[in-house]
């Protein structure tokens, strides 16, 4: 968190947690899908469900799914823009258990792929992503974040770390979760600089690497 997160973001009102933060959660799903979104099923938990409509939360989430930033003047017209972009969004209430009251589960589908993201908006436009593709993660998109889904084998993290080091990308934080030994695993690495395209392509080509995404930094600071 930097000074620019405290005086900021510049945003379309009315609520930094319900509007700007919701938009950023939509943006996470937008970038992780990596193609034009077609259908979105959005579960709203607790306070997001209760007071979201009055705060433009629904509009902001859809704006984020379309790739708009929190200060985009099209945010209040996000539903009309979604129709133009052929994105169908549906909202429902959901109980996600003991999570922050402002939490959403976004199931987003494109023509070829899909992504599931659970994230919370914790105040002042700051977010925390807690789950991607069913795997526990913990990052706030204040840094470029590399996400890798692969088959759990000995040495993958070491190979990734070596590749990052060779690319000059410094690791700020890392979470790794897997289904079971030798099963699917997901690695989320917060970096000081994004991984270069050649290095990303190098990682993509590895055997057992099922899905890779370089999520850009979404915070101001």
């Amino acid at each position: 968190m930097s000074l620019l997160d405290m005086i900021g973001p510049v945003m379309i009102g009315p609520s930094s947690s319900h509007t700007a933060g919701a938009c950023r959660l939509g943006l996470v799903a937008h970038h992780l899908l990596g193609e034009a979104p077609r259908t979105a099923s959005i579960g709203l938990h607790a306070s997001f469900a209760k007071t979201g409509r009055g705060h433009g939360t629904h509009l902001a989430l859809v704006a984020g799914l379309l790739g708009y930033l929190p200060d985009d003047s099209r945010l209040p017209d996000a539903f009309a823009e979604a129709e133009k972009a052929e994105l169908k969004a549906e909202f429902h209430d959901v109980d996600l258990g003991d999570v922050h009251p402002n939490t959403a589960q976004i199931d987003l589908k494109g023509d070829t792929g899909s992504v599931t993201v659970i994230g919370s908006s914790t105040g002042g436009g700051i977010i925390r992503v807690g789950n991607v593709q069913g795997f526990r993660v913990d990052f706030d998109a204040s840094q470029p974040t590399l996400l890798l889904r692969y088959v759990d084998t000995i040495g993958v993290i070491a190979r990734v770390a070596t590749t990052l080091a060779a690319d000059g990308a410094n690791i700020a934080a890392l979470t790794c979760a897997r289904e079971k030994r030798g099963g699917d695993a997901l690695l989320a690495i917060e970096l000081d600089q994004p991984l270069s395209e050649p290095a990303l392509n190098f990682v993509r080509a590895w055997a057992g690497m099922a899905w890779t995404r370089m999520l850009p930094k979404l915070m101001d600071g």
Partner: protein
Amino acid sequence: MTLTDLMNAPAPASGWVLAQDCEETGLDPADIRAEMARRIGEMRASIERGLSSDAKSITGMVGWNAKGLWDAPDALNAPLIRRVQAYAMAVNEENARMGRIVAAPTAGSAGTIPGALLGVADHLGIPDERLVDPMILAAGVGKAISKRMFISGAAGGCQAEIGSSAAMAAAAVTELLGGSPRACIQAASLALMNTIGLVCDPVGGYVEVPCVSRNAFFAVHAVSAAQLALAQLESFIPPDEVLGAMAQVGRMMPAQLRETAEGGLAQTPTGLAVTARMEGRQPDEGGGMIELPMA
């Protein structure tokens, strides 16, 4: 970075805050200063829009108050107070209209800092270039608060939201007027101490009532804290202990009083009527719709 660290920092406190933040994040101080200057411009633009528009918010509860105050005669012959209040409400009415604002630290409390800092500066004829450093100090105070506590009404009640913005604004105004780092943080502490316990009870769940007028009150509250601190008055309880007390009160506060619209003003007959009207139904109790007070 704690409030105590800030209080004991070499003068000016904003210079120390900027150096610390850049060391932590790797950002360039010149970039932060330039972006803060741009955000002050955004605040000014939202004030100008807010003072000239009387368009209602979607609920119809707010939208004309800033312009109304700005255009009305000065009842107290206290132009500073009126200016600070009008600026603060202008920003929050823009916010309620889904206009463009700068969250500081949140959107619900976005009017307090521009109201207090830009209001005082305009009253005294101080140019915007001199507001960049006080704004950086305000951000530093916010960062110190958010590391210990919460800055959202949902997490800690309105004390966390408007209390944070008032503390940030109080420190900024104090630095603008030449106060020492100690005086700046004492101002923040005094402002926080007088905000503890404030609940978040938005009518209908909208960031409108009491949020808009509350920003006007707390912008004046922040200026008042700066005045006390510049006269060497201090908070009897040390700043970080005040923060600890506020965090404790926030944790003790029931969910009904933390932005859920399940308590306080939101549950008054008028509050329930607004909720019902926005949901397109009759109120559950009270036998029919209540005529809402409109301008």
